[in-house]
């Protein structure tokens, strides 16, 4: 279970990333944030976001058009 869940469904670029960045502020170091998105572009973007910021993209998957990302704050 993630420390915090962000529902970014229905939002388009760059809102899922911007809201995830904000939500990460409420996550303790080493804690996790789960992001739900319907933006297909967010698949590439969350990988780039994590590579650049140093946060860890623990896993991501897709089910029924909803993308789920689990990010560990570092």
């Amino acid at each position, binding site marked *: 279970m993630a420390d915090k869940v962000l529902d970014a469904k229905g939002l*388009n*670029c760059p809102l899922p*990333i*911007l809201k995830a960045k904000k939500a990460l502020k409420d996550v303790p170091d080493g804690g996790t944030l789960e992001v739900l998105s319907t*933006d297909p572009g967010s698949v590439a973007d969350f990988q780039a*976001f994590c590579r*650049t*910021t140093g946060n860890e993209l623990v896993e991501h998957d897709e089910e029924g058009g909803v993308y789920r990302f689990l990010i560990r704050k570092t």
Partner: protein
Amino acid sequence: MSDATGGNAINPNTMSIIVTKGSLDWAYPPFILGTTAAAMGLDVTMFFTFYGLPLLLKKMDLKVTPLGNAAMKMPMMGGHMVMPNLVAAIPGVDAMASKMMRNLIKKNGVASVEELRDLAVEADVRLIGCQMTMDLFDYKVEDMIEGIEVGGAATYIEVATKSHINLFI
């Protein structure tokens, strides 16, 4: 290695954007890139000049025009419509096209320009209004949102010498 910064290496996590266009469509790229870069940990500076300056006004009234814009293909009835210039020039068509664009923006979950600008302010993006443009088009600093700076070309160039990424939009 010596460079324009006086020998100091440039911090890779820095970006500047010159914002020169202020229509409803062209307002997006600078604010999207600026806010996203800030979210990714970059120090961002945006310099608003000429038609980009009104994007700092407290009350933005953004419009888009199909006139002379051959690439503007609006989705309509399952296809895409390009408006002939002769039609686009008719009074009221810009207002209609702007309304259509706003509807598309809302329908697709795209942020409003106002929302992105608020997020830029919140993320401590440095916003600089061009003094010369303010004089030229008769804008006052009181007309602009709070927290902006005012400066000229030298102010921007100083920022650019210290920025790893410099964009002109």
